């Protein structure tokens, strides 16, 4: 459709659209994780929340359509992260290991449930998905046009960026939450219920993780497969660090990751024969490089992962 009109502009446009599509689930998960890490918690269970959200979206979507799938996905991510919050914030378990364990649990649960519900044969599940909504007028502009024809969850994801920024940096609650992440003892002395703030942040991060998984299923792939998130939750955590724990930073980092990943489509279109695996590696390798360059200037929340 987009490639029908020949020329460089069309190619760049479809490339940009692919970049936005790839980055949107990462962005949604990273925005949630930004809030979590600002409260002083690192959540490696995010990958699990995305996976749980993806399966819940598939189940909900096949029962009542994509909107119900979206709601169920947020609920699944939230429920899984309630477990994480319980063992880390309230029972004192190490965050990094507990997060890894929660992701492991999600792999087992989603794999088992998927086979229980849809059978072991792995028959391709076909789900109703969100259709693309064009932004009036602007979607007819070259290059910009293909970007502005996205399913609703993608727009919601981008909308969450300024909203979370407003919350974190322009609200009383956001200030208290950041205090919980920077100086929990001082915050506690000042009357901030640190544990409750962190719990709320983790639950929000879980819901966003679930929505991110749902975006993958209901706005892009249209089916569920075991382990389909393929590490995107971990990538989202790297994006938070790369984005310097700031919503707009996460936006920039997610788009950068999307652009790097989408490079492979550009190269495929250009006919240059480079093994596709190099493009699989590129985003991770460059993320590491970017982390090395960024980290020297901005520090993480002081109490991050300190228990």
């Amino acid at each position, binding site marked *: 459709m987009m490639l029908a009109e020949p020329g460089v502009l069309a190619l760049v446009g479809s490339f940009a659209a692919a970049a936005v599509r790839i980055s949107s689930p990462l962005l949604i998960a990273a925005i949630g994780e930004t809030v979590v890490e600002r409260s002083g918690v690192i959540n490696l269970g995010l990958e699990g929340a995305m996976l749980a959200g993806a399966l819940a979206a598939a189940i909900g979507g096949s029962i009542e359509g994509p909107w119900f799938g979206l709601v169920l996905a947020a609920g699944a991510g939230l429920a899984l992260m309630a477990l994480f919050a319980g063992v880390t914030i309230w029972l004192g378990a*190490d965050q990094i*290991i507990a997060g890894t364990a929660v992701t492991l649990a999600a792999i087992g649960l989603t794999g088992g449930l998927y086979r229980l519900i849809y059978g072991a044969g792995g028959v391709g599940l076909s789900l109703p998905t969100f259709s693309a909504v064009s932004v009036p007028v602007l979607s007819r502009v070259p290059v910009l046009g293909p970007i502005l024809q996205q399913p609703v969850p993608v727009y919601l994801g981008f909308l969450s960026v300024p909203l979370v920024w407003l919350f974190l940096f322009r609200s009383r609650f956001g200030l208290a939450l950041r205090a919980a992440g920077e100086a929990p003892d001082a915050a506690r002395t000042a009357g901030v219920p640190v544990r409750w703030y962190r719990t709320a942040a983790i639950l929000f991060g879980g819901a966003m993780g679930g929505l991110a998984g749902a975006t993958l299923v209901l706005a892009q792939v249209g089916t569920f497969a075991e382990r389909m998130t393929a590490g995107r939750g971990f990538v989202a955590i790297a994006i938070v660090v790369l984005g310097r724990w700031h919503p707009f930073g996460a936006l920039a980092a997610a788009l950068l990751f999307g652009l790097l990943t989408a490079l492979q489509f550009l190269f495929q279109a250009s006919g240059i024969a480079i093994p596709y695996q190099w493009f699989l590696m590129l985003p991770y390798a460059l993320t590491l490089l970017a982390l090395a360059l960024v980290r020297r200037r901005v520090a993480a929340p002081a109490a991050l992962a300190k228990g």
Partner: protein
Amino acid sequence: MTMLSVTRRGLGDWVASLAAVLAGLAILALGLSVAGYDAAGALAALWHGAFGSWYAFTSATLVRAIPLITIGLGIALAFRAGALNIGAEGQFYAGAILATWTGLHLQGWPRFPAVVMVLLAGVVGGGLWSLVPAWLKRRYGVLEVISTLMLNFVAEALTSLMVQGPLQEARGVYPQSDSIVAAARLPLIPGTRLHWGFALSLFLAALLWFLFRRTLWGFQLRATGTNPRAARVSGRINVGAVAAAALIGSGMLAGLAGSMEVSGVSYALFQSLSPGYGFTAIAVALLARLDPRVIVLTGVLFAALETGAAGMQRDAGVPAVVVYVVEAVIILVVLVADAGARRRAAPVPEGAAA
């Protein structure tokens, strides 16, 4: 990091570990009943798959325990120094790639040196792969949790590249390498499929136990992991260097596990050589409270769980993947029990642990 207790093992730890395993199995049984499976039958199939016969025990369970023990020892080494290595999976593949490449090029070598070369190649591969996060941490302060995780994906893509590119089998049909030369294969224990890597993993467990308990280096490691600030202030311990060395050593062990898998089990490089050993090994090391001697036991236990799960899928129709839930429950129960023990040992002001 002061989160992981590496204290002397008491009776309470054994009780907590046993409770963790039982809780994991109980939750599995409960979940299976709710899902409409025959839970008792499934658990029986699990047991049978792991311990049902001498052949199953030696040729499935113990073979699978080798990488879990070896990687688990590496995880213990890193975690003791406070270096959270979540990238053993990638280090395993890096070791397997270099070992396969070496094993394909040793025509005419006698057996013993060939095997040694292949295993050393694995150690070098895993070491190089963990050198990157160690350097990024030291030079740029990049969290090793993030960098080791990222490198898992790079290593998986690299493995895929290798089995479809430079290391692909001669006919170029399947995404796998040719078999390594016969001399480079670890000998099997007669009557079983158990290779001599098992003995090597036991030896390494003894060696690490000695290092941890009896050497100055082991003391520095413990000091770095349990109280980095005090270790730094003491002026006698280069905390960053100790943690970096532990991370690299951890990668070397994971790489060795990768080369043993190639040299003793698969004889070739495959894209799915590891069914997640690098992550299961975290549970192995944690359940053992990072004690090398106990890692031998927990390694066999988790190997039994996973081979048993395959039996469960075959005989009772329960998806093997649910065994990850059991592993997760075990990890979480151990973490919570440890945190509780720490709170009782050193009472902190209300909320300070939040």
